[in-house]
């Protein structure tokens, strides 16, 4: 009996890792259901999307509670905001410069796309994305694979696949996922990540032609 008990204790870390991967898969599949199934099948009745959204929010909240994570652990804090901003400053500036250079090379007028009212909700939307991506998925990826390239690649690939079938957004989010994930692993601050995400998204939306981006649409909505 004692040996069996020891074996069970030994398997606890691997069970915990498996559970972390399951949590990532669960959140990922909910996002895919909203993007692809609900929008394809429910048509105008978009309230149905609230069901998987509520389920995923409930899962993340229960998981934080069950694992004993605090708001500070997740990255809802201000003490490391400047430190995180310092880490993000150079790559964000570089990303903006690269987007503007690419637009200039393709002959697009810089910041010439019309301003839309929905851009006002961009900071909130990027915050929600950063919370899900880093505040949850990155943390679970670190539980499963530890800090470093493995967990970062998982975060980036998940983020990129969720932006399919838009080829441009998929590539941008793969790079963005790596960048924001790496910064989060060093300085977990969701406000700084959301700020960087907002700046880059606005630059893309105001510079790239709508035909190239389909108004930043992803999933089934991308097709119209």
């Amino acid at each position, binding site marked *: 009996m004692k040996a069996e008990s020891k074996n069970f204790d030994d398997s606890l870390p691997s069970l915990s890792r498996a559970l972390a991967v399951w*949590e990532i898969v*669960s959140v990922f599949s909910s996002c895919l259901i909203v993007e692809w199934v609900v929008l394809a099948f429910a048509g105008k009745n978009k309230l149905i999307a609230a069901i*998987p959204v509520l389920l995923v929010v409930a899962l993340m909240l229960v998981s934080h509670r069950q694992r*004993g994570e605090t708001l500070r652990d997740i990255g809802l804090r201000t003490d490391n905001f400047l430190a995180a901003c310092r880490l993000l400053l150079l790559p964000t500036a570089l990303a903006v410069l690269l987007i503007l250079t690419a637009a200039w090379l393709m002959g697009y007028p810089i910041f010439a796309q019309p301003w839309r009212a929905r851009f006002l909700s961009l900071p909130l939307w990027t915050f929600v994305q950063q919370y899900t991506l880093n505040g949850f998925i990155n943390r679970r990826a670190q539980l499963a694979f530890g800090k470093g390239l493995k967990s970062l690649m998982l975060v980036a690939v998940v983020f990129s696949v969720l932006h399919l079938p838009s080829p441009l957004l998929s590539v941008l989010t793969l790079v963005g996922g790596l960048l924001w994930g790496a910064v989060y692993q060093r300085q977990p601050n969701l406000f700084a990540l959301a700020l960087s995400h907002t700046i880059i998204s606005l630059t893309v939306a105001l510079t790239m032609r709508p035909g190239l981006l389909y108004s930043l649409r992803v999933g089934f909505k991308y097709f119209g």
Partner: protein
Amino acid sequence: MKIPPTALVHVLVGKSIAEALLVGALAVFAYLSVLPPHFHGWGELTEGGIAGWAVNNARPWERVGVQFFLDGTFSAIGVANETRPDVVSAGWAKDEWHGYFFPLRSLNVGDHEARVYALHDVGDGKRKTLQLLGESIRFNVDSQGKLKRIELLK
């Protein structure tokens, strides 16, 4: 960080079941909206063409729009609004005005296939779907222009 208790596993299992049910329900809802199962009808070869009837059981007083395809190609459009008292007496319709007829003229000698479809609007007419009424009708045209049904062995 604490090792999570089994409660988290229960939440994950519950969420998976709820989402599977949601996706399944959406798939059934979408199928029923696009291809509703309440169209009934039949078609047969007559002397001068293809005659039949079409009823929408969800709206029994509606006259069903029908499309006629000959050898896989769209040929004609019509409305099933001709008299068919036999359909009422057989209990398929509530009134007799559900018949259609598509004449067959100047066909090449040889085998042909006719299909009649019920037309259905989806999403306020943004999309239209077709559903086969009855079975496809295979027939032959001889050198004198006479039509003869080809019986298929099942």
